[in-house]
């Protein structure tokens, strides 16, 4: 019997968490680790490891094939380009404190797609080898260029078998024509709501009249279209964190059952206004408190609420093939399956890359709508797209669930080769995965009830949290 290589990390109460490269996991103790390292595993050890997918007899064994399948399905394949984030204008009608990409004043000129960029972009769409397309309109405030949105949507509807559109709008000023545009079945709304009225007003809308206008549009969006078409995301300042219960209550009142807690993003201009030093610990303290309150809420209410990213991590732990969040995949291929097209027609591999480039320290553009993709630059970025051979990640117990973030490393440190454990991305995700496994191994029925909801199972089965004693 052969044991697939195990990684380990100290966890609660002197226990160790063990994982394999296909994402299988269990907890055990120091004595097991030493038996394993010394090559003196017992029959009971082998039986446990075989039963839980950590061991195989030989390469003709079904257990071997099963492991290969699970491992392969965790690999994010290079996919066809079928997803664009478009910035038809950088102009905006708000001046949010933490605007990350240097919005331009509403009346400014030279910050919109011109006719040539639109023509070239649509021309590039017609060359795509895909039948489905997803377009996300960002900004600035994209509804300021409803004419461009309409033209792009019409083109996609006529040229792809299936097309989906997301308008990322601040819902500040919405004309009747815009409401009509947003009402289409293939068009979705993603807006910002910072969870607490006072916080949203102080950070975004500033004045009461302006805030009332937003609030009225937010209510109209939810009442007309419902939560199937409308999502709202908060952006939180670590130095001014809201009360978790208030945030949960506000989202529930809107009918939302998924809350994606996001900190003010380090990339872009927000770094000039906000102090990001030593914020990781404060954020995780808040995050844990928030999830604790979610667990209480879900215990007392039938309509369960999730924190989106935690649910995503849990799904990546328990399932294979969960590649639907572009910030956490392995390999995290850049510039292949989705592209950002800025207001000036430049291509970026991610929105964060656009933010980094806007502040002028690094140019992470990878071509433009006129000349196409700069394959050489894209290749350079992708040289570190995978954690498979990273000298730190190969020893990390969370490697199978995690993924690198080259753009974040470049943004913060100007390089990608600093020790992983010193990077914000690694520290943050190590803390998140530690927390996720605490929950997975929790014996609290309240936590287990929430886990069931978040994983989409009728009941959380504690056998999933295996222990080798």
């Amino acid at each position, binding site marked *: 019997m052969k044991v697939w*290589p195990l990684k380990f990390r100290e966890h609660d109460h002197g226990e160790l968490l063990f994982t394999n490269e296909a994402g299988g996991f269990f907890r055990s103790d120091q004595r097991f680790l030493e038996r394993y*390292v010394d090559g003196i595993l017992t029959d009971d050890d082998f039986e446990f490891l075989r039963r839980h997918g950590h061991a195989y007899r030989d390469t003709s064994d079904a257990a071997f094939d099963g492991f290969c399948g699970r491992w*392969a399905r965790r690999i994010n394949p290079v996919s066809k380009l079928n997803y664009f984030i478009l910035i038809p204008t950088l102009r905006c009608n708000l001046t949010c404190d933490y605007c990350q990409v240097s919005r331009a004043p509403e009346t400014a000129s030279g910050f919109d797609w011109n006719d040539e960029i639109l023509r070239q972009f649509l021309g590039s769409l017609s060359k795509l080898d895909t039948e489905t397309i997803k377009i996300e309109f960002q900004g600035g405030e994209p509804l300021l260029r409803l004419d461009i949105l309409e033209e792009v949507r019409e083109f996609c509807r006529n040229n792809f078998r299936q097309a989906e559109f997301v308008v990322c709008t601040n819902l500040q000023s919405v004309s009747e024509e815009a409401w009509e545009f947003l009402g289409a079945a293939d068009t979705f709304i993603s807006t910002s709501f910072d969870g607490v009225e006072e916080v949203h007003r102080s950070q975004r809308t500033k004045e009461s009249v302006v805030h009332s206008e937003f609030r009225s549009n937010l209510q109209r969006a939810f009442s007309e279209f419902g939560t199937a078409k409308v999502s709202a995301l908060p952006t939180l300042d670590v130095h001014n964190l809201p009360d978790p219960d208030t945030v949960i209550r506000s989202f529930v009142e809107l009918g939302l059952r998924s809350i994606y807690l996001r900190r003010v993003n380090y990339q872009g201009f927000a770094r000039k206004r906000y102090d990001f030093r030593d914020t990781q610990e404060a954020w995780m303290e808040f995050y844990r408190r928030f999830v604790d309150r979610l667990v209480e809420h879900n215990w007392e209410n039938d309509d369960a609420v999730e924190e989106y990213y935690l649910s995503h991590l849990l799904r990546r732990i328990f399932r294979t093939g969960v590649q639907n969040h572009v910030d956490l995949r392995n390999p995290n291929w850049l510039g292949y399956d989705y592209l950002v097209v800025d207001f000036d027609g430049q291509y970026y591999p991610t929105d964060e890359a656009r933010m980094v480039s806007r502040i002028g320290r690094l140019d992470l553009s990878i071509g433009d709508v006129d000349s196409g993709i700069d394959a050489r630059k894209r290749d350079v970025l992708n040289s570190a797209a995978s954690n498979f051979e990273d*000298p730190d990640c190969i020893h990390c117990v969370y490697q199978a669930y995690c993924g690198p973030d080259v753009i974040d490393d470049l943004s913060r440190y100007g390089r990608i080769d600093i020790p992983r454990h010193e990077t914000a991305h690694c520290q943050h995700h190590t803390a998140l995965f530690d927390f996720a496994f605490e929950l997975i191994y929790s014996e609290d029925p309240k936590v287990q009830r929430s886990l069931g909801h978040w994983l989409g199972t009728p009941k959380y089965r504690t056998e999933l949290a295996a222990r080798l004693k």
Partner: protein
Amino acid sequence: MHPDDSRKPIQVNEPSENHNTLSKFRLDIPVELTAFLNSAVARIGYLFPTARIDARDGYLEIGLPENLDFDDFRQQLFYSIYREKIREEGKDSRHALNVAVFGQ
């Protein structure tokens, strides 16, 4: 080797101050693990850049600054050796995995 045998015969000298203000320790390494020592020491030196580690014949001379606890450091060092051993001994399985999935 019995686990207790392999981990306990570590001779730890009493901490002593040297001219670089590093407390010096001696750590004996079981012979079965010495093959993985070089890579583990390289890695642990990178994780704890303020520590000084010199490999001798069958043992390590370790110099630790005040803020590093010897017991914790020893634990991490052994973990590092274990990880190198596991990785090295898992080569065949990983190769078989790659052949099965990618055909190479």
